[in-house]
């Protein structure tokens, strides 16, 4: 199941980030075609392609676009989420560095579809080189007059905060505030950046759009499963022979990805567990990897496709230690707005740490599970649910390993 690559097809070229290389390989032809299409027709095409958001939530892109109020008089914003921060994920970094014009062209088309004249690209602050590459591409696109004739792109740098990847946190940050997520509804499509209707899309999602326009929704849909079209870029890291970004049709299985693409398991060579969709996805055991890597396949397996960041652990990895590292992350990144999230992430980190250090108490595991289950679904944003997924799954699936560390458990 190697299949055709779409998003990564030019990555091997050393000049793949330049306008020249992009145009040579068919770039900006989709934009030419889209200019002759009605906005509503573009939305319909993307809907029919079954493109699902690739930033984490997996929401159907065309449907999201159709939520922009019809005949809205004021401005509408397109916001690109390039705040990549989900542990285990690095695909957007590759796209920004190696094919930035694909994002520019996708944005031109998306902006036409939602009738937006201004877009903001929110790049995580640490991504200095990706930001430079993308900004250079934007400058080239202005010089070539793709931009500046009714559509402008502003490149905006974040300043270090995972929560700004959450779309409403991102909007707060873009507005010059701390990155506190906002209660939904209203959804950004109704009231988003600066109070205006706003579509937030992930980098990779938008990079697919030119191909859908050029080759058609039916072609794109057929690459994937019944409910999700296309390919996506899987970031594979941890204990594998060839960590890296692999583009594959979304129907690829986790087993194929690990063994056929990433070269199999290293360490002691025997698989213990896999995080399939960035650290916020529930962990899978070695017997659970015959699952397709599309949004619904992983949902049915009790976890999520998330950002498609795959982290592989062999038998020598300590799951309690892995959970401690993950719990430290959530404790550090909670924005502090909601009590369950602010308090539990801190306490659960302390408890996992004391378990790993051999100072755990008999009730600690049940306390963590109880606290995690009670807080899930009660918070302003999905950050806390993303922490609860690992807390519960690591402990429930590897309970014996935790108990072995607790004196007199």
């Amino acid at each position, binding site marked *: 199941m190697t299949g055709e690559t779409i998003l990564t097809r030019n990555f091997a070229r050393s000049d793949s980030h330049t306008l020249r290389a992009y145009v040579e390989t068919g770039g900006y032809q989709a934009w030419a075609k889209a200019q002759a299409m009605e906005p509503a027709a573009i939305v319909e095409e993307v809907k029919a392609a079954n493109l699902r958001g690739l930033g984490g939530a997996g929401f159907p892109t065309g449907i999201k676009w159709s939520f922009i109020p019809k005949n809205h008089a004021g401005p509408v914003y397109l916001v690109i989420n390039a705040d990549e921060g989900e542990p285990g994920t690095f695909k957007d970094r590759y796209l920004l560095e190696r094919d930035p014009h694909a994002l520019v062209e996708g944005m031109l088309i998306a902006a036409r579809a939602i009738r937006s004249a201004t877009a903001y690209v929110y790049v995580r602050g640490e991504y200095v080189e990706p930001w430079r590459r993308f900004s250079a591409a934007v400058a080239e696109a202005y010089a070539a007059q793709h931009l500046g004739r009714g559509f402008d792109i502003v490149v905006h740098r974040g300043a270090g905060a995972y929560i700004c990847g959450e779309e409403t946190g991102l909007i707060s*940050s873009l507005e010059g505030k701390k990155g506190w997520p906002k209660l939904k509804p209203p959804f950004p499509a109704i009231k988003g950046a600066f109070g205006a209707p706003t579509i937030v899309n992930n980098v990779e999602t938008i990079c697919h759009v030119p191909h859908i326009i050029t080759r058609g929704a039916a072609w794109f849909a057929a690459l994937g499963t019944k409910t999700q079209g296309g390919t996506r870029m899987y970031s594979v890291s941890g204990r594998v022979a060839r960590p890296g970004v692999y583009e594959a049709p979304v129907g690829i299985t986790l087993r194929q990805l690990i063994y056929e693409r990433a070269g199999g398991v290293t360490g002691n060579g025997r698989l213990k567990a896999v995080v399939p969709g960035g650290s916020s996805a529930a962990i899978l055991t070695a017997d659970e990897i015959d699952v397709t890597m599309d949004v619904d396949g992983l949902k049915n397996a009790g976890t999520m496709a998330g950002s498609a960041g795959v982290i592989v652990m062999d038998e020598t990895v300590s799951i309690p230690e892995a959970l401690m590292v993950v719990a430290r992350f959530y404790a550090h990144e909670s924005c502090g707005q909601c009590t369950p999230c602010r308090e539990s992430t801190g306490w659960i980190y302390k408890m996992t740490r004391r378990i790993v250090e051999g100072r755990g108490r008999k009730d600690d595991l049940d306390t963590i599970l109880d606290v995690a289950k009670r807080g899930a679904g009660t918070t302003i944003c999905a950050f806390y649910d993303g922490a609860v997924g690992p807390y519960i799954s690591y402990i429930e699936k590897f309970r014996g390993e935790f108990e072995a560390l607790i004196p007199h458990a």
Partner: protein
Amino acid sequence: MSETDGAPSTSNRTPAAHAGLSDPATTVFSAAQLTEVRRLQSLYPDPRGALLPVLYMAQETFGWISLEVEEYVAGLFSLSPAHVHEVVTFYTLYFRERPGRHVVSVCHNLSCHLAGAPGIIAHLKRRLGVDPGETTEDGRVTLLSVECLCACEAAPMMQVDDRYELNLTPTTVDRILEGLA
């Protein structure tokens, strides 16, 4: 603070001076920078969208974001210093004390952890004689231990100023440290 909003055209008047700050002479943008501030502000329907970019400019210019810098920037936006303080303290990339000439941020998240980040951090602590969060006595390096920098395919890794340094070993870490003046 609205008087400071129409920023001065020369750098000898200090918008922060009337706020009673201790050393305003060190906390002023040049005329060119003030033009850049206004350009950035014009890119957003509400000028305060430019707050993060302008704070980056301030950090580059003044070295770090002191309370005085916060007040100065607040003046440029007609915002309260409290708002700017709230923003500055929310994000990890604004320094609230002067960092070393180089900032070394080692990733300690899961993929890097699996690839030996704890050993890399221990090595850096030994070599630099500081703990994460501290700066070497000679002011050369600030060491930080940070969350996923999203280069997990090349773990363990760290960021040195603007650059990502990938697939670290103690030997490559030493070579990188030697290159930092």
